[in-house]
């Protein structure tokens, strides 16, 4: 039975650290994808055709309430086998699609809460001023709907950062992958995994405090009470 060794810790540290670039890069790419794709859901739900809205709502519910790990496996292992449209994707691309789509359903909800929060009078004013639909959204609604959701969106960046190590299961060489391969090489997992935990903590904890500050500032600005938000939770 092995024991904790600082030598191993120091030896593994630079190796695990090599994966940090990929982990952060994947986080940001997934996040960007989810931010953009979130709008797609909003758009689809607002198409004035009831059956489509209904289907989209349930697809979102399906994606949200099934494990992202399985979705990741689906895209990486199964998508290439789908006749006709399937194609082989790199682990990184699979992770961006898998995690990005999963989280876009949450981001879409955040957008929706922002849009619902825009005062009814603003819609009426836009209509009264005869704004065309596109302009109404870009000039009136979204500039008011998005800023109040920024803290929540920030929260999701941290949440996604913590979900990204799932991608190591399909071979994305982030910090968790580096730790596991170090472990399998030298048959000592505890130290490299502790390094991974420390890296996550060191990066996510200050960000969480930052987001919290931002949230309080925003709440003051938009005169909203601090509410109990589910947006905080881990997703997995």
């Amino acid at each position, binding site marked *: 039975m092995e024991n904790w060794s600082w030598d191993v810790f120091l030896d593994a540290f630079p190796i695990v650290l090599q994966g940090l670039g990929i982990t952060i890069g994947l986080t940001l790419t997934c996040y960007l994808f989810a931010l953009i794709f979130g709008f797609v859901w909003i758009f689809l739900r607002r198409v004035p055709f009831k059956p489509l809205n209904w289907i989209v709502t349930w697809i979102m519910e399906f994606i949200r309430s099934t*494990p992202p790990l*399985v979705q990741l*496996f689906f895209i990486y*292992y199964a998508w290439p086998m789908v006749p006709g449209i399937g194609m082989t994707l790199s682990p990184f691309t699979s992770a961006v699609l898998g995690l990005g789509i999963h989280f876009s359903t949450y981001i879409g909800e955040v957008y929706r809460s922002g849009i619902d929060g825009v005062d009814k009078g603003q819609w009426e004013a836009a209509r009264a001023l005869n704004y065309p639909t596109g302009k109404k959204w870009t000039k009136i609604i979204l500039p008011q709907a998005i800023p109040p959701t920024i803290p929540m969106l920030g929260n999701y960046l941290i949440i996604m950062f913590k979900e990204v*190590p799932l991608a190591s299961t399909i071979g994305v060489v982030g910090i968790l992958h580096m730790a596991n391969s170090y*472990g399998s090489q030298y048959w000592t997992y505890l130290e490299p995994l502790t390094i991974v*935990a420390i890296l996550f903590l060191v990066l996510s904890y200050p960000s969480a405090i930052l987001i919290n500050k931002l949230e309080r500032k925003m709440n003051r600005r938009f005169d909203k009470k601090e509410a109990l938000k589910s947006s905080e939770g*881990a*997703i997995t």
Partner: protein
Amino acid sequence: MITISAIEEIFPALMKGINITITVLIASAFFGYLFAFIAGLCRLSNNIVLRKFTGFYVEIFRGTSLIVQLFWLYYAIPILFGIDLGSDWWAGVIAIALNYGAYMSEIVRGSILSVAKGQSEAATALNMSRFQRMRLVIFPQAVRMMLPEFGNYLIQMLKATSLVSLIGLHDILYYGDILRSSNLSQAPIVYLLVLVFYFILALPLIFLTRKMESISKKGVAS
């Protein structure tokens, strides 16, 4: 290639994993809620040591990934504590419960704090003790507020159970992976069915959560 016969073959194979998925879910939910209440109440305690210690636990588990915690506990528990949990089942349950317990302790704490101050004052005016105020007045109202969030987290925990396949537990996903590796061309239908399985398990939880939302709207002063 989605044929009825393929489904007939895959479905029972996946069914073998449902036992582990459900037992891990129930046990992690039980311990998760338990940890959430203990930690949530400790963070409201007057004892600074208790408060700091639980704060530390909550920040550690909220600040790192569940998958990292799962692997870490899987390797660390036998090494650091010298105990053999007897099975990886417990490692999975403890990891999920500790992780979600940390998140949900914030719900417990927030809900208790958001019961209006006047409620506690009215209870004081009726000469209730600290404990009675908590038990009779604050807690029943706070729990109503927690219900919808607890429901949401139950769905999250269901999703999280899929991770235990990574430490070798034979859950639904584990059997899905076996089927996929034995016949790669079946992968789409296998994973689709795995997703459907999870969704079917999630459906009652989704409706439960909605029901809890409507319950919690009643009977709370804030």
